[in-house]
């Protein structure tokens, strides 16, 4: 029987340690081990993007990352997006543009959008639609989500 491993990782800017079994995904570790339930499970097989987190600057599905793989990595989750000063511009834009209905996909969309604009601050509609294709939303038809991201993008 496999044992438990200690993992040290940087989570939302803070170095933390946690224990997990190798078979536990990063998603499970975040939610069940660390109690950070902002990252959502939608499909657990990499097809919905609800569990998107940023790892070393890239968006990944945390259901397809093992917790043990987080060793030495830098991870941002939805809990790390707002600062004490206020919401991230994307969060604010999602609110203003009514870019969420049920909200379950929202953390994933926000992280994915952040991942995009962090490296392509002037992404246009086509680029946004392509980038977000790994995130499923069933409520909005994507229109208001794309508009919310466009509002923050420098592309006009």
């Amino acid at each position, binding site marked *: 029987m496999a044992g438990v491993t200690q993992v040290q990782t940087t989570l939302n800017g803070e170095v933390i340690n946690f224990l997990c079994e190798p078979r536990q*995904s990063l998603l499970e570790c975040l939610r069940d081990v660390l109690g950070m339930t902002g990252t959502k499970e939608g499909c657990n097989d990499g097809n919905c993007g609800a569990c998107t987190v940023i790892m070393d600057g890239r968006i990944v599905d945390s259901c397809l990352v093992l917790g043990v793989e987080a060793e030495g990595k830098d991870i941002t989750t939805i809990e790390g997006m707002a600062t004490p000063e206020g919401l991230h511009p994307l969060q604010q834009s999602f609110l203003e543009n009514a870019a969420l209905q049920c909200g379950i996909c929202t953390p994933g969309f926000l992280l994915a959008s952040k991942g995009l604009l962090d490296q392509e601050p002037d992404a246009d509609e086509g680029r946004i639609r392509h980038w977000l294709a*790994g995130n499923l939303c069933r409520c909005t038809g994507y229109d208001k989500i794309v508009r919310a991201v466009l509002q923050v993008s420098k592309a006009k």
Partner: protein
Amino acid sequence: MEPFDYLSPSSIEEAVKTLASKGDQARIMAGGTDMLVQMRAGRRTAPLVVDIKEIPDLNVVSYDATNGLTLGAAVPCYKIYQDETLSAAYPGLMDAASLIGGIQIQGRATIGGNICNAAPSGDSIPVVIALGGVCNIAGPNGTRQLPVEEMCTAPGRNALADGEILVSVSIPAPQAKSGASYLRFIPRNEMDIAVVGVGSSVQLDASGQNFVSARISLASVAPTPVFAKEAGDSLAGKPVNEETIQAASELAQAAAKPISDMRGTIRQRTHLVGVLTRRTLNIAIERARGG
């Protein structure tokens, strides 16, 4: 998921030693985007998972205009298409690297993993075959090379022997007046498994009006990716025109041995092989002439 041990070796030697001693009790994980899904669904079990992403040799991306590209088996797709030199040299490879899964998957999935996973629909395989890619394999008895078209032996099975590991894939340097392209047909625009995929590469003469050589490879039309050698060879020495391209596409169709399943019928797939062969050849020709 059943419990497993996890090992992240830091050298090829360590990985090979572990794999050789554990036999079928160990499985190699690169991006994990296929393997973790398969393990979670109970389709694969592995008492030991060997994560190869921390091995420096497997993270190599080396390119020069003489020796071509050596792409480590653990290099995720995004690192390939974000590399401007590679994008310019291998646009056909970029076609594939940028359409595997979504952006999240591309942050993890690797070409090496895609080849070793040996799915008939593996999106990167046809274009790597078309580009003449070769697998560099390390094992208990040293290293060996194998053309990519010989790597997939059956759905989900590859040619690696016990203890062996895919270190990298080598792709020859692009010649002048050469070009490649990969297209797949899916009902949506992203996130689907190819109904049919076709990778083509061409080498034109200096005038750009005649084929010197061509290679065509197909996905999702047989138990393994298909290298449609006759189809590509038929173009050698021929002028670039609709007839020759049509003839090649028909040979590609003849090389396809598809089944009917929920993703498509035999007739649809065979038809699409023709369409996509023509389209990829035309894109490859455009690229060859432009580059």
